[in-house]
């Protein structure tokens, strides 16, 4: 896991990584296998609270990420075998990058953060039996 939790379920230290579960039927699963992240519509006008509520991914400039690897795994297996988890280190973008992390209202308590824009170079974690993950080297 990239983060540990206190007895209230809150992260007990600053998270090192953010994760994204990509299910096997996702339209961008092919790009995800290459470590690329592509939102539904990079120029979309969807607001963070609308994206977080669900159902707007296809027209959204955001992709959903979480500090909780278990949540990412859950999304990765949501369409059966063939899903994966993407991982980035936490942190602000270097100068000149076109992507950014944005706050999510996270009304479902999934420790969600939003990534605005496209970004490459994610570490790909493959789903193994029982939903465990392994780094794809």
């Amino acid at each position: 896991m990239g983060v540990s939790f206190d007895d209230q379920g809150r992260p007990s230290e600053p998270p090192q990584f953010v994760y994204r579960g990509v299910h096997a039927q996702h339209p961008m699963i092919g790009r995800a296998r290459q470590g690329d992240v592509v939102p539904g519509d990079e120029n979309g006008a969807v607001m963070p609270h609308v994206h977080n509520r669900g159902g707007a991914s296809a027209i959204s400039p955001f992709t959903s990420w979480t500090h909780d690897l278990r949540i990412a795994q859950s999304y990765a297996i949501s369409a059966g075998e063939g899903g994966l988890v993407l991982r980035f280190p936490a942190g602000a973008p270097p100068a000149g990058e076109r992507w950014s992390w944005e706050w999510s209202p996270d009304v479902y308590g999934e420790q969600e953060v939003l990534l605005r824009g496209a970004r490459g170079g994610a570490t790909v974690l493959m789903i193994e039996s029982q939903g465990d993950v392994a780094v794809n080297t």
Partner: protein
Amino acid sequence: MTQHLDTGDPASPVAAQDAGSGAKRKASLGARKGFAFRQVAESKRKAQVDDVKRRPAVATFEMPATASDARKLAAAFLAPFEGVDLPIEETRPQRNAASEVLRLWETRLRNTVLTGRAIQGAAELVDELRKIPADAAVEQFGFSGSKRTANVFFDAATRALLGSVVVEQ
């Protein structure tokens, strides 16, 4: 060999054999009791059905003719939930395939075990989504308020209300 189980029903073969002498009177009394039992069971079943019909997540209302009507219905449906405001920027519903909506809400429902945050109506919505074709279009109206966030879902073809989910913020 056929084995008869005594179900407690006086009409069952085992109960009839056990009746012995005076069987007719007892059988008659038993039959009346059995009828009463069946009446109570039927009454209970009807009450359960009525209860399910009253549950807002699976209730069926008069079909809204347009998306605008559907939104008004969704807003009226959510009116009892204090703290669900109606942001004016969202007048059109999100439209997605039922299979995608089902996958998302099955996952969010499963994740409640991890998050500890209840999603009211999610289980009923998932049940309803499983009953319609995977490629059916589902319209979703979202509402965000100061205390709660809600989504209301309709079958786009029939305008039938599929359910709603509400979370406390």
